[in-house]
């Protein structure tokens, strides 16, 4: 098992190394990368199959000592291990990653053809896949951080792949730096964990917390630690307020957006929370839920008005990730991960579909200039439609299952704790999602083409591009996950594969409903539906059907409105926009987040650095330019003095010494009699000085 995992992990790296070094020599080297990806996918599937079928709930892990500082004074044994941990979540995730990665590779063969850095593109994809697998497999948080940064690198390289475009390189830079902000939080969290437990390994950290050993012996700091690590997830999963990088990241090639910025890397934040779910206190979870809710809501409202097809999808991604984060925050752990998987497939499908459209339309991304493409690109249309239905939460799709679960979770949570904000946001966003997705579909595929010329040239994409679409659309149906299209809990994914989370936090820090009642568990036995306590199970059960019906209503409402607006044109969009101009612009301008950050953080930092730079040049560089400015009056000697010495602190000293020297020079008049007067004065002074001795 472990060997297969290692192979799955390192094969893409080999692909990267080989491709990057031979890229300029051998034109066809990208085939190698694709073969490698196929092998990795095969490995991942085998891995998942064996793990899920034969090993049940056991966690298989293996580690080796990477750095061994031995028995150190003050800090005891310091060993840093690297290792692989395989549990159900990891193997499911790796299959998702490898599958989408493989499909994106295939898709890219055609999509990227003719690019001058064709081979390098595949190399980067390989690097990304390697890094992402690292995140999935890791058994400790430092290694998580390492690969966390490495996916950041590959994301940087791929967003900025067309770095000749300033916007692309800007976006790449922005993505990396914004991510870094979150990462620093995560790193501080890691420091706190390490400081408390002297280990990075998840198991050991969990064990220590479960025996009541908290960072700085305080529940408060446990909350803080959890939130700091969550900051990493905010960055990587593009949650508010660090979401600004993701829309810009659409500057990268579209397949990259599908792989990294929709399906896998951005989901890593969710994956991280899933991994360490057990250490979050109730306070931390509330904040997580809040961030998630905001991230679900705000981008959804922005997506309503965007015209760039990829931007719409990007905001939708943030919104969906917000759902997942919110779900985790309200304790709907299993649904969050479930949504992560389903979302990965249908969002990848949407992105690749948009890629197909863009490819077909010769790099046109503005949906206002499309239209009627249904006829030209039928396969793309249908797959896109299926995926859109899935994201909107229409029955028979996978999205319906997972989204409904999340909404039910928020419902139950609200019921138990009184935080009704979350379900309200959840349902509202469900409507918005349905609306903007169908807005895209209608504007892109339905109606009359707005740009005749481009329309004429549009064509259905080649097989290698359409095949992944079809596959992913297929994965958006319910039957892969459960036999019952209305209840995911009947399916194998939720009932067998995703287990209820283990909690390690002290019970005093949890929500009441998350404190398991012993007899209940012994009575029922653990099953995913019956997490935490009886109270919770009942609430969830009660929420299930109301939530389903309500969500269906909201989705239907959204779709209907979209048709009213765009297909049947019953309501004039322009007029509406005119009437609510402020709101419209607010949405169109993405809530002015970018401007806000530019004006505050970026301008502040850059301005401050300029200031410091000038400060460094002018002030520090001459602690007394204060004295220097006084001396500037003596321009007669400064002019001469510049030859001798310099400015700055050195300068000051020079000026000062020069000044002293100047005074001393005054004595040297050249008149011997004056000298003698000085000598006499000196004698008198000396006498005066020493007479009292």
């Amino acid at each position, binding site marked *: 098992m472990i060997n297969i995992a290692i192979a799955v992990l390192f094969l893409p790296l080999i692909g990267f190394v080989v491709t990057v070094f031979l890229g300029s020599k051998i034109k066809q080297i990208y085939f190698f990368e694709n073969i490698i990806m196929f092998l990795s996918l095969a490995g991942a599937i085998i891995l998942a199959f064996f793990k899920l079928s034969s090993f049940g709930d056991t966690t298989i892990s293996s580690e080796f000592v990477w750095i061994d500082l031995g028995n150190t004074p003050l800090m005891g044994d310091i060993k840093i291990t690297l290792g692989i941990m395989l549990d159900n979540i990891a193997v499911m995730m790796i299959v998702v990653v490898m599958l989408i990665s493989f499909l994106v590779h295939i898709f890219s063969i055609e999509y990227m053809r003719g690019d001058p850095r064709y081979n390098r593109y595949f190399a980067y994809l390989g690097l990304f896949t390697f890094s992402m697998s690292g995140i999935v497999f890791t058994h400790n948080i430092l290694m998580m951080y390492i690969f966390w940064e490495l996916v950041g690198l590959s994301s940087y390289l791929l967003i900025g792949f067309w770095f000749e475009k300033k916007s692309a390189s800007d976006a790449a830079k922005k993505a990396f730096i914004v991510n870094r902000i979150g990462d620093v939080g995560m790193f501080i969290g890691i420091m706190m964990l390490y400081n408390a437990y002297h280990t990075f390994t998840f198991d050991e950290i969990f064990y220590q917390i479960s025996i009541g050993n908290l960072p700085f012996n305080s529940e408060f700091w446990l909350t803080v630690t959890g939130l700091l690590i969550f900051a990493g997830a905010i960055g990587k999963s593009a949650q508010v307020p660090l979401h600004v990088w993701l829309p810009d990241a659409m500057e990268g090639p579209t397949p990259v957006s599908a792989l990294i910025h929709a399906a896998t890397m951005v989901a890593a934040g969710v994956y991280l929370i899933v991994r360490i779910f057990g250490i979050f206190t109730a306070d931390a979870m509330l904040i997580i839920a809040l961030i998630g809710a905001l991230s679900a809501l705000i981008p959804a409202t922005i997506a309503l008005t965007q015209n760039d097809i990829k931007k719409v999808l990007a905001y939708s991604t943030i919104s969906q990730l917000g759902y997942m984060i919110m779900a985790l925050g309200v304790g709907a752990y299993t649904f969050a991960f479930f949504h992560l998987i389903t979302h990965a497939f249908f969002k990848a499908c949407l992105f690749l579909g948009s890629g197909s459209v863009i490819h077909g339309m010769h790099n046109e991304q503005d949906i206002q200039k499309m239209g009627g493409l249904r006829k030209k690109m039928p396969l793309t249309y249908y797959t896109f439609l299926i995926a859109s239905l899935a994201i909107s939460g229409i029955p028979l799709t996978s999205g319906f299952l997972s989204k409904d679960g999340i909404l039910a979770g928020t419902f139950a949570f609200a019921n138990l704790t009184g935080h009704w904000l979350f379900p309200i946001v959840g349902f509202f966003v469900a409507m918005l999602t349905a609306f903007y997705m169908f807005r895209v579909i209608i504007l892109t595929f339905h109606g009359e083409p707005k740009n005749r010329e481009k329309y004429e040239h549009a064509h259905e994409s080649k097989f290698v591009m359409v095949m992944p679409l079809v596959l992913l659309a297929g994965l958006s149906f319910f039957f892969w996950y459960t036999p019952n299209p209305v209840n995911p809990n009947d399916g194998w994914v939720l009932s067998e594969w995703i287990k209820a989370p283990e909690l390690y936090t002290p019970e005093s820090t949890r929500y009441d409903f998350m404190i398991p009642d012993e007899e209940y568990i012994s009575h029922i036995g653990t099953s995913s539906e019956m997490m935490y306590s009886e109270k919770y199970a009942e609430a969830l059960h009660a929420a299930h059907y109301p939530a389903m019906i309500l969500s269906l209503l909201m989705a239907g409402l959204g779709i209907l409105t979209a048709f009213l607006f765009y297909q049947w044109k019953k309501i004039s969009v322009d007029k509406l926009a005119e009437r609510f101009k402020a709101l419209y612009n607010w949405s169109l301008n993405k809530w002015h987040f970018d401007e806000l950050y530019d004006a505050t953080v970026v301008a502040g930092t850059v301005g401050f650095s300029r200031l410091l730079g000038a400060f460094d040049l002018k002030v520090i560089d001459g602690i007394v330019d204060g004295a220097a400015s006084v001396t500037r009056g003596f321009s007669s000697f400064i002019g001469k003095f510049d030859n001798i010495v310099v400015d700055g602190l050195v300068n000051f000293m020079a000026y000062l*010494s*020069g000044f*002293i020297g100047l005074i001393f020079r005054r004595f*040297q008049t050249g008149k011997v009699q004056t000298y*003698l007067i000085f*000598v006499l004065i000196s004698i008198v002074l000396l*006498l005066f000085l*020493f007479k009292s*001795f």
Partner: protein
Amino acid sequence: MNIDSIISDLIFIKPEIAIAATLVLIVLVDLISPKSKTALPYISLLGIAIAGVFVVQQFGTAEFAFKTSLSSGMFAADDFGSFFKIIVLLASVFVIFFSISSSEIKSVNDHLGEYYTLMFGMILGMFFMVSASDLVLIFISIELLSLSSYVLAGFVKNTVRSSEASLKYVIYGGVSSGIMLFGISLIYGLTGTTNLYEINSIIQIQSFPHITFLIATLFITVGLGFKISAAPFHFWTPDVYEGAPLPITAYLSVASKAAGFAVLIRFIKITFINSIDHHGNWELLNIIDWRSIIVLLSILSMTLGNFTALWQDNLKRMLAYSSIAQAGYMLLGIAVLSDQGLTATMIYFIVYLFMNLGAFFVVMLIANEIGSEDIEDYKGLGKTMPFLGVTLAFFLLSLAGIPPTAGFIGKVVLFIALVDANMIAVAVIALLNTVVSLYYYVRVLKNLYLVQVDEEKPVIKLSFANGFVIILLAAPILIFGVYFTPIVNFAKNSINILGF
């Protein structure tokens, strides 16, 4: 005191006799064959060599010559004196080498006889100075030195600046020695003797009006301060150094300064000593606060010397100020008032001899070629005169005290002595002064190497003899910079002043 004892005492002044004899020989040779000026330097060198042999032989003796009483005399033949005689002789040898190749001296070739005669007059004066233990002998020998050097400073008669230097020197020197003599007369009046040892034994038991004694001592200090060009008695130094012929400037800056230091040390140590403990710390009589006075003079000297040197464009003048500053450093060693400090000063002197003479010599050779001592004219010389450039840089860096030159060792030993005496504040001031000094030394380096010169000038060849002399000066600096045991030993073994 009778004739017999005077004659028998002559063996203690064998070196002086050799010098005097050479002086006479030079006069005679010059009279007999006025044409053959080329022989004179060699005769001089021979005389110095003989004197040198005598001086070396005298190491280890500790006797009074010309006794005025049972336990004291006018002249103390001791290792301390011999040490400074060696310094003087070494300086003389090099200055004679300088004189041979100096274009200034060549211009007065007809008067070379007088030149060497006067130089030996100086040597003779210095020899007596460093051994004199009687204020009268001190005064007379200082006058002998001064009178010869007044003339030598203006030896290149036809140039204005040489004459001016000479005039200033003689007036300034005359007044200084007058003041000193007045001070001596006051001491004589108070104690009835001019012998340092006797003064010491008298002031040990008797008390005197403090002000009078202070005035007398300060007056004497003026005369000595003039010789060692310590601030605030230094005013003549830059003008005379700039105006005098370069070999003489070099000579004044080393030899005559060394003699002045020897007198000052002897004067302080013999006259004011109360006791010396087993660590070699001098316990002085509670009359004059010598430590404060010397610290004051020393800080003043180095600060003034260094800071004013920053402004100099004439390299000779800059070196004049630098030598004032160097005197300040050496005074620090005396200020410690211990054998350790004394040793440090003596070690510094050995090093100073080589580096200062070396710097002056290179400046002279460059002036011979380009006819200027102006720093601005040094631009790009590093290329046209590679050897001179490198060696000048080396000497200047040694003066600044950068390892691995002997200049560094000199300073380190000095600072060790200061720190051991807990004079840390003084040490810090001195160290900060070395930073200032770096400015102007490096400025020369900058002009030599860093400044771009557009025109290509041909490389100027250096004669083998001059190169050899430079190496003779530079090699010890490097060698002693890395392995300084010999100079430390030499100085350490020479601190014995007669009577202690």
